[in-house]
């Protein structure tokens, strides 16, 4: 059996487990959609042009960073990772299955938002499909690697929601998910610009609203690649199969 066959084998298990856990499915799927509906209902057409890309960025982060930080902490704490480590399943195939699952969730959510913005909010189809794909992929790579790296910092599963939310909530508030990022005070603006979410949202802004080309988004791409490199480094460096030391 090749490593890719085994990765597919594990991906299918992850999908099955995802749908069988209604709370996880709810928080990573339905919650961003509820945001979308609520803000759609109270927002002007101009505001929607801010909120649709913002919710798309939030969704990518929630389905990768939050989901993986929680999931990997649980799997490590409960000893599932250790159990997997004793099987012939290659570590890379296992991880590919886990990441594939998160990427699928992110992709499906972005897809739902694309349809919602066309049919529910009359924003039309995305202006730049290439930017949509590029920033979905970059956002997933960046937040997935950071999510796994962050799980190494979380001491145990009970603490996982608190740890992820202390990163997630401030990040979505300063990154202009719900309002124009230009409105926030300069120092918060600077902090937000150093963090990855703003740059994913910038990319989605171009994709959904302005139609700006990728050459206008090079600095956003650069920041995201940097954070991805940091995330991959942290994910690998802190990796443990076990909740104990040894």
């Amino acid at each position, binding site marked *: 059996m090749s490593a890719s066959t085994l990765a597919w084998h594990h991906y299918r298990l992850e999908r099955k487990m995802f749908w069988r856990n209604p709370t996880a499915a709810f928080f990573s799927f339905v919650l961003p959609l509820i945001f979308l509906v609520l803000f759609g209902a109270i927002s002007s057409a101009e505001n929607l042009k801010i909120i649709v890309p913002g919710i798309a960025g939030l969704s990518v982060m929630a389905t990768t960073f939050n989901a993986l930080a929680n999931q990997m902490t649980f799997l490590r*704490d409960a000893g599932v990772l250790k159990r997997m480590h004793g099987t012939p399943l290659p570590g890379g195939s296992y991880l590919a299955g886990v990441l594939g699952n998160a990427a699928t969730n992110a992709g499906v959510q972005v897809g739902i938002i694309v349809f919602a913005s066309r049919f529910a909010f009359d924003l039309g189809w995305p202006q730049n499909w290439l930017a949509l794909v590029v920033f979905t992929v970059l956002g997933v790579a960046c937040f997935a690697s950071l999510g796994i790296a962050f799980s190494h910092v979380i001491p145990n599963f009970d603490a996982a929601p608190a740890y992820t939310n202390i990163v997630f909530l401030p990040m979505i508030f300063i990154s202009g998910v719900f309002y124009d990022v230009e409105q926030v005070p300069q120092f918060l603006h600077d902090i937000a610009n150093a963090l990855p979410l703003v740059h994913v949202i910038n990319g989605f802004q171009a994709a959904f609203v302005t139609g700006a080309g990728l050459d206008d988004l090079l600095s956003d791409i650069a920041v995201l690649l940097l954070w991805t490199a940091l995330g991959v480094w942290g994910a690998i460096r802190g990796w443990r199969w076990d909740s104990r030391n040894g």
Partner: protein
Amino acid sequence: MSSGTPAILVRDLRKSYGEFEAVRGIDFEVAPGEVFGLLGPNGAGKTTTVEILEGYRRRSAGIVSVLGFDPGDRPRALRERVGIVLQSCGMYRHVKVREAVAYWAGMYPSARDVDEVIEIVGLTEKRDALARTLSGGQARRLDLALALIGDPELVFLDEPTTGFDPAARRAAWETIRRLQELGKTVLLTTHYLDEAQALCDRVAIVKDGRVLADGPPATLGTAASHYRVSWRDEHGELRTREESDPTPLLHQLTSGALARGEPLRDLSVSRPSLEDVYLELTAEPEPEPAEETGA
């Protein structure tokens, strides 16, 4: 016992965690088809030893060979041929028993029949239950099913019955005997003597990272040189004495009783059981109060 290459070979195995040396030079061999037990109190170094053999931990020094491989390299060819039941181990909470076993089967080149393995561990009635709804004993049986699905030559069982009620233990023992009948090599750790005695062809008693004694459970007891003789003396007091040869003492006791014309009551002559050997070997050294010995 086969005289071929051992399934497991351990020579002068050492493992340190910082300053603390958890395993301090352990040696043993396990022949193919043998059920071998590592017996010892908690913290003796049993789990560390087994986890080195399973490839979870790196040894600090010594030679280790499992089915001819060095487990430290974690070769996939080795992982395909061993089954592991860890001491405590979680599971995906939303997976059903049969799904889990079928998923595991997909990782091995020559997996056994899924339903047959579920039958062997006695989970047929629970095959459609979610893993998180299983009782402790049932979850342990699922662990065993996942360890057996790849048709391993060698099975590691780390404290397979800890926390079981007596009935569940008996059932687990039956399953382990079944493995033995199938010709599997089994390495198990336990701190239950009766378990070692009931299941193992050979046992090594481990404490403080060393092997204190090893051999078949029956000979470990009798290898100790002394007999224990106890009887009730003419004042009605129960006495006990340990003798390497009980003949003179027995002669003296019986002739004394005959001379007095009294029966010799509560006489027993016993050899130490594995339990006695174990307790003696693993006893914490403590200042003993001056012991009163029989006349």
